[in-house]
């Protein structure tokens, strides 16, 4: 896969503060790279720096060409904004034609492209309407179609679906995937929605304070997070984290209880080392739950049910276990009475171990 977009040592300062530092990234042709992170982590700033809308230093190469000194219009980049940035005084057709007209494309060529873009996104019947006459989903499609007008090498999408409601978002997601596949450009898609991130990404990058925490296949990021921040950012409800101490050779000590670990984690167990144990809700099993493995684990302990949260196709049970709050995932039919005592066990295969100081995964 050839790299369409390459960033090296990119640095962006806003108001004297580093928003991005030493940022390296390479996106291949046809790749959809999703960048996720909390607000203020520098996601949008990165897109704006690539587009040339924010001053930056370092190297930005698009199709092997250094574009650092070029104005935004000459960088061969298409951008989709979070609030769509449609011109309110122009019709859909006018909005689509704006960029090509500004770049001096011929009328015939523009009409051909409008027809193609409108067909790709089902906008044929809306071409003469103004943005105010469109629904949110339609506006979003117009914004996408406008980016489509430009056969750009690099696509930058800044939370393009965050203003849509859930069912529309699902449809728009597949539209974005379709278009991305057809064009074969390099796409950077920024979102703070983890479901979207996991669903769309070829590779998923997690950003925090302007630094890339991890960049990997989405399920790798989910299953083997580089650190506690990434582990907590992905997954809903958030991962359970227990403060534990190493108890060599094969276990950790959690309050009064010894928790045996799977073999892969034994190397990290130096005596007395303070650690954090991560467990996703699906790895906390409750006795009596159909989703718990049939065999009884040897370290069954007891907890008290605080409350249960219905989640449609699943149910989350909040438990108090040894003065800590844990969340377990069970089937929706499971009867969880608040205040009731219940047995629970941890799935050793789902256990993740982090250093207590650096919070890096071990």
């Amino acid at each position: 896969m050839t790299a369409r977009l390459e960033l090296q040592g990119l640095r962006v300062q806003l108001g004297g503060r580093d928003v991005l530092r030493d940022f390296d990234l390479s996106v291949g042709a046809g790749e959809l790279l999703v960048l996720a992170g909390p607000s203020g982590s520098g996601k949008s700033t990165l897109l704006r720096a690539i587009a040339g809308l924010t001053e930056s230093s370092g190297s930005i190469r698009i199709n092997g060409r250094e574009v650092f000194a070029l104005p935004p219009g000459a960088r061969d980049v298409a951008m989709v904004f979070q609030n769509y940035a449609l011109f309110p005084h122009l019709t859909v057709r006018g909005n689509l034609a704006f960029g090509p007209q500004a770049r001096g494309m011929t009328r015939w060529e523009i009409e051909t492209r409008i027809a193609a873009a409108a067909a790709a996104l089902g906008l044929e019947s809306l071409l003469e309407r103004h943005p105010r006459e469109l629904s949110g989903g339609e506006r979003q499609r117009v914004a996408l179609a406008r980016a489509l007008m430009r056969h750009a090498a690099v696509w930058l999408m800044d939370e393009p679906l965050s203003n849509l409601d859930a069912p529309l978002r699902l449809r728009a997601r597949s539209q974005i995937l379709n278009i991305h596949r057809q064009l074969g450009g390099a796409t950077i898609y920024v979102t703070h929605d983890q479901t979207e991130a996991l669903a769309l990404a070829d590779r998923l990058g997690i950003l925090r304070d302007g630094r890339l925490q991890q960049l990997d296949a989405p399920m790798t990021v989910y299953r083997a997070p580089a650190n506690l921040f990434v582990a907590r950012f992905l997954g809903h409800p958030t991962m359970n984290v227990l403060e534990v101490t190493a108890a060599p050779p094969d276990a950790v000590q959690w309050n009064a209880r010894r928790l045996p670990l799977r073999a892969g984690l034994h190397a990290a167990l130096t005596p007395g080392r303070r650690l954090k144990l991560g467990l996703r809700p699906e790895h906390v099993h409750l006795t009596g739950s159909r989703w718990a493995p049939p065999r009884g684990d040897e370290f069954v302990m007891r907890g008290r049910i605080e409350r249960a949260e219905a989640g449609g196709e699943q149910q989350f049970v909040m438990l108090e276990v040894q003065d800590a709050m844990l969340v377990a995932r069970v089937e929706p039919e499971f009867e969880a009475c608040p205040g009731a005592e219940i047995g629970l066990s941890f799935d050793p295969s789902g256990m993740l171990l982090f250093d207590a100081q650096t919070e890096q995964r071990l």
Partner: protein
Amino acid sequence: MRPSRELPAFALLWPLLAGTLLLVILPAAATLAMALFHYDALTAPRWAGAENLAQLFTDPVFRIALRNSLWVALVAVPLRLLLALLLALLLHAPRRETPALRAAVVLPTAVPDLAWALLWLWILNPLYGPLAGLLPLFGIPADAWLYDPLRARQVIVLMLLFGIGELVWVLIAVRREVPHELYELCAVEGASRLTVFRRLTLPLLWPALLFLACRDAALTMQTTFVPGMIVTNGGPNYATTFLPLLVYQNGFEYLRFGYAAAQTVVMLALTLLMMVVQIVLLRQWAQRGA
């Protein structure tokens, strides 16, 4: 109990409504009535019917004043708007120097009309005024505005060009309402500055410009009063006798209140007509532009 929404609204509005009734609507009605009488404030009013109005059509001074007022409105309003637009686009972005510059733009508007006129009497004084001293450099005699009708009216327009603080203020506010993403999109699409101005900024500022043009046309009919009276005193040869000045002279100098009232009514009708024509014209242009 659901609180009534209309009652507090009226409670808050009544001082304004009372003021408007007392200071605008009643005097306007009185003017309208007075236009139908001969009245000199010394003897009892006599019924005139349409005589005052008819006299306007044969009065050469009224025709000159009408032409002067229209000339100034026609020249000053577009220039004022153009200048205000230019300044608003220069000053809308927050930079370190903008607060001082904005203050400088607004300051002349805050100066009372009379003080402004007296200041210009000094600026234009052919013997020691700074502007008059510069005029010969352009081949214009320093005292030209005292005897040349066209120069005199140009001086009035020049004075009006400084009082655009409000226009700039409104246009800055409207410009700042335009989402910055639209400009960023233009940058990404590679649009030139001219294209951005012609196809984004101007169309989005158009409704505000339309509104301001109407308001300014109405305002200019009236704001010529003080400069026309103080700086040029209606001359030379009636060149700066504008409608409000003529109304003032007829009423308070010649004590022909009925006639002055008739002139006022015509001035009001004219102002309304100008606003209607502008709204229609500018709307048509806006539609064609889009």
